C-alpha cells in the first residue's frame, strides 16, 4: 500500500501542478494542453472509434510482423543450431545484415509494397527476427546431447524429432527471444507509422501534432504508453515462470 502511494505521488503531483499552472495561465496552451483537456480528447476519440481503430491497425501490423519473424527465426534457428558447419558458412552473411537499422528499410518496403499493412509488417518482421534467431540457435545448440542421442536411437524422423525433442527442449530459451521480439514489434510498428505509413496510432499522433491538437496528441501518447506498459506487464507475468518441457534443469 505504501509503495503504491509513493509510486503514485509524483505522477499525481505533476498532473495537479500542470492543471493548476495551466488554469493560472502560466503554461502555453498550444504546446501543453491541460490534463483535463487531454482526458476529454481521449474520451472523445475513444467514443468516435478513432483510437480503437488506430490501435487495431498498429497491433495488427505488430502481430503480423512478429508472427512472420517468429516462424522464420525459429525455423532458421533450429536448422542453423543443428548444423554448426552450416551456421559458420551462413552466419557471417546474416551478421552483415543485422546492424542495418530496420527503419532504414522503410523507403525500400514502400517501393516494394506501397503504403499499408504489408510494408509495416515487413519492417517489424526484419527488426524482430534477430532476437528470435540468435536465441534459437543458442538454445538448440545447448540441448542436452543425450536427448538427441535418444532421438537417434529411436530412429525418429526429422519432423517428429523436431516436434518431440528439439522444440520442447529449446522452448524455455526460445520464449525469452520471442518475448523480446514481441515488445520490439509494437515499438517498430509505431515508428514506421511515425516515419511514413499513414495508419495506426503513430500516424494519428503526427496528424494531431500537425493540426495543432496537442490534447489529442497527448491522449494518444499516454494511451500508447499504457499499451506498452500493459504488454510488458503481461509478458513478464506469462513468461516469467515458464521453463520449457524438460524443466529448467536441462537448459544450461
Amino acid at each position, binding site marked *: 500500500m505504501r509503495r503504491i502511494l509513493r509510486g503514485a505521488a509524483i505522477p499525481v503531483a505533476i498532473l495537479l501542478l500542470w492543471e493548476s499552472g495551466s488554469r493560472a495561465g502560466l503554461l502555453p496552451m498550444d504546446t501543453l494542453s491541460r490534463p483535463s483537456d487531454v482526458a476529454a480528447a481521449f474520451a472523445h476519440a475513444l467514443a468516435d472509434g478513432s483510437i480503437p481503430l488506430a490501435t487495431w491497425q498498429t497491433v495488427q501490423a505488430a502481430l503480423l510482423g512478429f508472427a512472420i519473424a517468429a516462424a522464420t527465426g525459429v525455423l532458421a534457428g533450429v536448422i542453423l543450431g543443428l548444423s554448426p558447419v552450416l551456421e559458420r558458412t*551462413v552466419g557471417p552473411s546474416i551478421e552483415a545484415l543485422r546492424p542495418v537499422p530496420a527503419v532504414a528499410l*522503410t523507403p*525500400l518496403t514502400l*517501393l516494394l509494397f506501397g503504403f499499408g499493412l504489408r510494408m509495416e509488417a515487413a519492417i517489424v518482421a526484419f527488426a524482430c527476427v534477430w532476437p528470435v534467431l540468435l536465441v534459437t540457435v543458442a538454445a538448440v545448440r545447448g540441448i542436452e546431447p543425450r536427448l538427441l542421442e535418444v532421438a537417434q536411437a529411436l530412429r525418429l524422423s526429422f519432423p517428429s524429432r523436431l516436434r518431440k525433442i528439439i522444440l520442447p527442449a529449446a522452448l524455455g530459451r526460445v520464449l525469452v527471444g520471442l518475448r523480446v521480439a514481441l515488445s520490439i514489434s509494437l515499438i517498430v510498428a509505431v515508428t514506421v507509422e511515425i516515419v511514413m505509413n499513414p495508419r495506426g496510432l503513430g500516424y494519428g499522433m503526427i496528424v494531431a501534432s500537425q493540426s495543432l491538437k496537442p490534447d489529442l496528441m497527448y491522449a494518444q501518447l499516454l494511451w500508447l504508453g499504457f499499451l506498452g506498459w500493459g504488454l510488458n506487464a503481461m509478458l513478464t507475468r506469462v513468461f516469467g515462470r515458464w521453463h520449457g518441457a524438460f524443466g529448467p534443469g536441462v537448459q544450461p
Partner: protein
Amino acid sequence: MKRLLEASGAVLFAAGLLLLWQILAERELISPVFFPSPSRTLGELWHQVVQGLIWAPLVATGYRMFCGWALASLAGAAVGAAIGLSRAAREYLEPLLEFLRPLPASAVVPVAILFLGFSNAMTIAVIAFGAIWPVLLGSLHGFVSIEPQLADVAAALKLTRAQAFAKIAVPNALPDILAGARVGLAISLILAVVTEMQASQTGLGQNILLAQRSFRSPELYAGVVTLGIVGFAINHAIVVLERRLLRWRGAPA
C-alpha cells in the same frame, strides 16, 4: 586449416549470393528497379565516396546521434546512480519509470516537434529520450547490486561516503552502464534516421527517403549499406571501449 576452410566457405557463400543477385538483376529476372544489381549499388557507393558526397550527410547524422547519445549516457548514468543509491527515490520513481520505459521513443517525435520545431535540438532531444533508458536502468541495477561484502570492506577501511562511491560503487556499476550505453548507441542511430525521415533534416536517413521518392534505387541501397556499416562500426567501437575500460576485470564474464 579447418578454420581457414570454414572462413573461405563463409566468404564463398556471401559471394555466391551476391553473384546470384547480380545475374538475376542483369538478366532482368528480378526487377532492377526494386533490386538493382550489387555492382550498381557498389558503383553508386564508390561514386559517393570518390566525389565526397557521402561525408556531409554522414557527419550530420553522426553529429546528432553522438550528441543525443552522450547526453543520454551522462544523464542516464547520473539519474540511475541517484535512484540506485536511495531507497526512497526508488519507491517514488520506479513506477513512473516503468511506465515511461516501454514507450516507443519515436512516439515522442510529434511532441518534440511541437516544442522545438524541425531543429537539431528536436532531433537530439528525441535521441536522448530514447537512448537514456538502457543506460539509466543499467546504472540503477549496477548501483543497487553492490555486494554486501564490498560494503563491509568499505566500512572496515573507514572509507568516507565519497570514497566508497568512487572506489566501490562506480567500478561496480561501470559494466552495467557501458552495456546500457551500447544498447543506447544502437537506439541513437535508429532514432537519428527516424527523425531525419520524419522532420526532413539532411542526413543519411533523408538521403534514402529522397532516393526512394525519385526511384533512384542504387542510391537507396547504397544508403542502406552505409547505415549498416555505420551500425556495425559503432557497435564494434564501443565493444573495444568496453574492453579497455573494464580491463581490470580480467577475462570477460
